[in-house]
């Protein structure tokens, strides 16, 4: 079976010459939940924007579910964007339609889904994040935690191969943070989670990658990486005060 995501030799420099990625290799199997850790400026966002072909032009290849991302092939790109569900950090960037229902319908409607099938997808996606009761509300009238969950629903409705979340726990209060974790662990979809929140990574992702200076410097079981003090210190990763990495069997 094809891996959900296979990135090989990915390198990228911004038009101003700043090199952000220096040959990244990552393979994520179907159904895995993986955290992408790294300090600010490590190239995490640049990496994520390559997964659905928004950024391109450097060296290397990205394959999603066996299909190569080719930014010149518009039709293939549409399929890639269905397969990669990107949840942005600020839900106000993600939710731009007048009502939650229309926003969740936006993605699948762009893929040509209409009528009863569209309604079914919207209802199912909202159901999975526990937000079916706000379908007719305006996004700006929801709490921040609710908006983040609706943002997850907007990409679930596209039935993606891999869900990519940028800082999913940022700005959430502890209860919303826990609720989101419960939702994410209940989904049977491949997850790549970009985060600074190391306890969140330890809780949700059995495996982690550390991206630093534009290369993957570590790849392994999350609790082992977090327990490696030298690695952590070298890449400006720090556990919150008082947090002890739980040992897994």
């Amino acid at each position, binding site marked *: 079976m094809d891996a959900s995501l296979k990135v090989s030799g990915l390198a990228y420099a911004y038009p101003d010459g700043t090199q952000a990625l220096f040959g990244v290799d990552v393979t994520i199997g179907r159904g895995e939940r993986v955290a992408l850790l790294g300090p600010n400026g490590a190239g995490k966002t640049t990496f994520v924007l390559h997964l659905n072909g928004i950024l391109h032009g450097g060296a290397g290849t990205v394959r999603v579910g066996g299909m190569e991302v080719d930014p010149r092939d518009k039709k293939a790109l549409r399929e890639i*964007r269905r397969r990669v569900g990107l949840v942005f950090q600020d839900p106000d*960037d993600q939710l*731009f*339609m*007048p009502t939650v229902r*229309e926003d969740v319908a936006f*993605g699948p409607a*762009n893929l040509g889904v209409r009528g009863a099938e569209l309604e079914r997808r919207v209802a199912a996606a909202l159901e999975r994040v526990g937000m079916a009761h706000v379908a007719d509300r*305006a996004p700006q009238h929801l709490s921040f935690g609710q908006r983040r969950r609706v943002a997850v629903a907007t990409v679930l409705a*596209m039935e993606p191969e891999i869900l990519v979340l940028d800082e999913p726990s940022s700005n959430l209060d502890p209860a919303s943070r826990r609720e989101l974790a419960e939702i994410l662990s209940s989904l049977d979809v491949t997850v790549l989670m970009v985060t600074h929140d190391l306890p969140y990574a330890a809780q949700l992702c059995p495996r982690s990658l550390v991206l630093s200076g534009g290369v993957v410097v570590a790849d392994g079981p999350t609790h082992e990486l977090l327990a490696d003090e030298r690695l952590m210190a070298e890449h400006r990763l720090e556990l919150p005060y008082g947090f002890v990495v739980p040992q897994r069997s």
Partner: protein
Amino acid sequence: MYRPGDSPVHRLPPHCKILAVLGFVLAVVATPREQMWAFAVYALLLAGAAAFAGVPYGHVARRVLIEVPFVGFAFLLPFLATGPRVEVLGLEVSQNGLWGAWNILAKGTLGVVASILLATTTEPRVLLLGVERLRVPPLLTQIATFMFRYGDVVVAEMRRMRTARAARGFEARDLRDARILGRSLGALFLRCFERGERVHLAMLSRGYDGRMPVLLRTDASGGQWAASAVLPATAAAVSLAAWMAQWTLL
């Protein structure tokens, strides 16, 4: 502005209502200003429409005030215009100017009231769908939709910036402080611009290709078209009658 309700007027498709208001306004504007009775009939028509839609008169009256700055000039006309003078309340004013002022005031107010009734009985986003149905370029309606969605976000951002300024002891006292306010405005503009780029990325990521998918159907039946034609058709008849009266006068 929108007032939720379930009257027959609320239920009419948005594009029918927009065309009805447009037709009504055209009929009013075309009416000769000397036929004052015609304007009274128009006012009665609007009052009837408001009652039919269950919109309280107070709701309309408060919002009519928005026209005040725009018709202010009309009040100056009787004093500024030339031509034969007449005496009103002990003041000598221009007769032409008086007619001009009445013309602007009467037609302006009728137009504003008609628009208020439209906005009161139609949700803003449904109104935009109606505009789109009338073949207004989608780019324009998309811009309006985004203004509607992000207005609150931008205002909240502006408020936070003001709070942050005040928290550091800033208080706008005189014109020299305009420089600081200008800087804040510049920062706000940059933030909006960056947000716009991020929203665009989010849209691309979900398969946006320059066209918004049509998600809500707003089809009009023959009956609905006929119902929404009542107001403009009556107004057109009144306008025609006013012209006939005007001609027999000459």
